[in-house]
């Protein structure tokens, strides 16, 4: 298959390109125009074609879809204010979707997020899966949740109206090299001090190479469903404490962890919420960890399952979470492409 991978230069994108090439696909890897360095091995590899474009500007992107069988849409904005994230995630998706009618693309894979679920009203230690309700009051949640929800809604509506197959993957926490910390652990205070909010909450981890394989399998999906939503979590979901202990053991200099009990954080967030309602009519700006809906989204103890994705795609996470950490800290390049033919000169 020929895949167009948007956001190919990103953390997940580089791994997806490697996984797609490893599975024998041709990849058109889309990088942003100002990208200064192309990942090693891409320009010479016969299975990779590098193209440049910014999906926030719709013009001139049509040629990128020529000959493409499926799109893996990873481009998104995680930082900046609501409007920057909306532009980089939702408007970019809207522009991409506007190119689909008239193209040969049959399948679209979009990476959503666990952030789209409702957490505040979800009972602690209950199961969170694809059937769980979505955020009830998204405008109380952070920008990431709002934009990811809007993106998903848009993609699913268009898949239904424009008649292409769409797989929305909602990864839990994707971790890997340079991305070992997650907001679900609490807060980093500098590089040496970590505030751990909670202790026993399972982390819905997916190691980046495992996740990348899931993405490629989704692009290959040829089942009966027109729209598919699948959570991506690895087989094991270690507790916050276990994961941090493993990191502490391997990272030098060893960071210090300050544990803050989940019950205490909930209480503090509740107090902040009450104060906001009583004295500021709910208009005060409070740090995310003190907003109950955001705190619960980050740190509530829940159980996770990957039954649906295994059944639909036959996905089997290759690495355990300890192996994931080990590979993340090792010297070898986890995004290296498998050997292939070199491009012939024109």
């Amino acid at each position, binding site marked *: 298959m020929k895949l167009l991978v948007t956001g190919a230069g990103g953390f997940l994108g580089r791994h997806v390109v490697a996984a797609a090439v490893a599975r024998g696909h041709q990849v058109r890897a889309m990088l*942003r*125009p*100002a990208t200064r360095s192309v990942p090693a091995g891409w320009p010479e590899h016969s299975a990779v074609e590098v193209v440049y474009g*910014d999906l*926030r*500007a719709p013009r001139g992107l049509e040629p990128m879809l020529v000959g493409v069988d499926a799109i893996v849409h990873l481009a998104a904005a995680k930082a*900046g*204010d*609501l*409007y*920057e994230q*909306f532009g980089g995630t*939702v*408007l970019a998706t*809207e522009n991409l979707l506007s190119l689909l009618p008239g193209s040969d693309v049959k399948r679209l894979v979009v990476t959503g997020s666990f952030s789209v679920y409702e957490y505040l009203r979800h009972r602690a230690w209950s199961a969170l899966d694809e059937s769980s309700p979505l955020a009830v009051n998204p*405008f109380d949640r952070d920008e990431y949740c*709002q934009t990811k929800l*809007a993106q998903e809604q*848009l993609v699913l509506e268009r898949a239904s109206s424009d008649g292409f197959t769409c797989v929305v993957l909602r990864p839990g926490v994707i971790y890997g090299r340079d991305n070992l910390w997650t907001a679900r652990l609490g807060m980093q205070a500098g590089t040496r001090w970590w505030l751990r909010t909670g202790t026993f909450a399972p982390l819905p981890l997916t190691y980046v190479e495992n996740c990348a394989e899931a993405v490629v399998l989704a692009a290959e999906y040829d089942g009966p469903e027109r729209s598919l939503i699948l959570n991506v979590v690895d087989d094991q979901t270690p507790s916050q404490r276990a994961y941090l202990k493993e990191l502490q053991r391997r990272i030098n200099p060893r960071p210090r962890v300050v544990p803050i009990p989940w019950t205490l954080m909930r209480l503090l967030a509740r107090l902040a919420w009450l104060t906001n309602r009583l004295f*500021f009519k709910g*208009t*005060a*700006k*409070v740090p995310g960890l003190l907003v109950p809906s955001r705190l619960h989204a980050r740190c509530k103890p829940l159980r996770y399952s990957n039954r649906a994705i295994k059944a639909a795609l036959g996905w089997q996470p290759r690495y355990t979470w300890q192996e994931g950490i080990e590979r993340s800290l090792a010297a070898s390049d986890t995004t290296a492409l498998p050997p292939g033919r070199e491009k012939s000169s024109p």
Partner: protein
Amino acid sequence: MTDSDHPDCLEKKRITVDIIGGGKISEQHLGTLRHIEGVSVAGICDLSPVLARFTAERFAVPGWFTDYRKMLEQTGAEVVHVLTPPATHDRIVRDCLAAGCHVIVEKPVALSYPGFQSLWELAQARDLRLIENHNYRFNEPIRRLEQAVAAGRIGRVEEVEVRIALNIRAGGRYADENLPHPSHRLPAGIIHEFITHLAYLLLHFLPDDYGSEIDSIQARWRNHGGGELFKYDDLDVTLLAGTTHGRLRFSCRQWPDNFTVLVRGSDGIATAELFYPCFQLTPRRSVGQHLTPLVNALGGAKALVGSGFGGIWSKIRNRGAYEGLSRFLELTYAALQSGGEAPVTFHQMDATSRLVDRLLAEENRV
């Protein structure tokens, strides 16, 4: 006089409003309009359907559109807020006026003084209001500065300086090389986004209320950081209005960010800082020549400490540098409801637009 005759009991005229442009500034307008009595937003329009719908849901606006002409037809709005990029203002404002709507428009109304004149004449011909957003004039520190100057606390105004330092070259939407911000294509490049603020604040504190003729303009437009993206990243203007000196500064390369209006008079200095709200007054004191510096230093220290805590308090209360926009819109709608004068007048918009043109004129560049 019966209860119903009492002015407080008179029902305010209900006004239907449409918004064109769903970008970042729209959240400030919509957030304020929610709280203005007698105003209801009927529609929001953006070229992007998904942004229009998202904004409508977020602010509980009943209608969303991608074609503003259709929106105006369907909602029957009396007032339209034009919040699109500056290069699109002329066409959209013209259409809104033609549809019989009063227009509140983000700065600058037009990209040139003749453009402004043409739109103003159209508004006049149709007996409609055209009001440019001069929001920073309504921020609390500027109002305190106004009061101090009007009360003669610093004597006769001798010098006015307006300075914005915003490190936008370091990152964010204006520094994005992947998708250059449309404002880079404006006559003053990215500085066009800010130049109206600089101009109206300078004019506001010059004596003679725009009557004095400004001359000896020397405008230094520079691109110190180089590169293709930024046309200019620095502006340094000196000018003379009668005997009053004026200075405008804009820099994309300094830290910390600040937005300061400083007025020097014959009897003192007054400063308003807008990004970290603060007002500071250094007047001539009656405590004698030797004690005056000490008393002024204590007064300055008090203002700075107050501003430090005030800044945190403002953050908690979610009141940023846009606080003046709320007051500007409240006063604008009060004027629309009562038929009174708008808080930003023709003379203020006219003088601002004229000054911006002169800052860009070849003959004034050095």
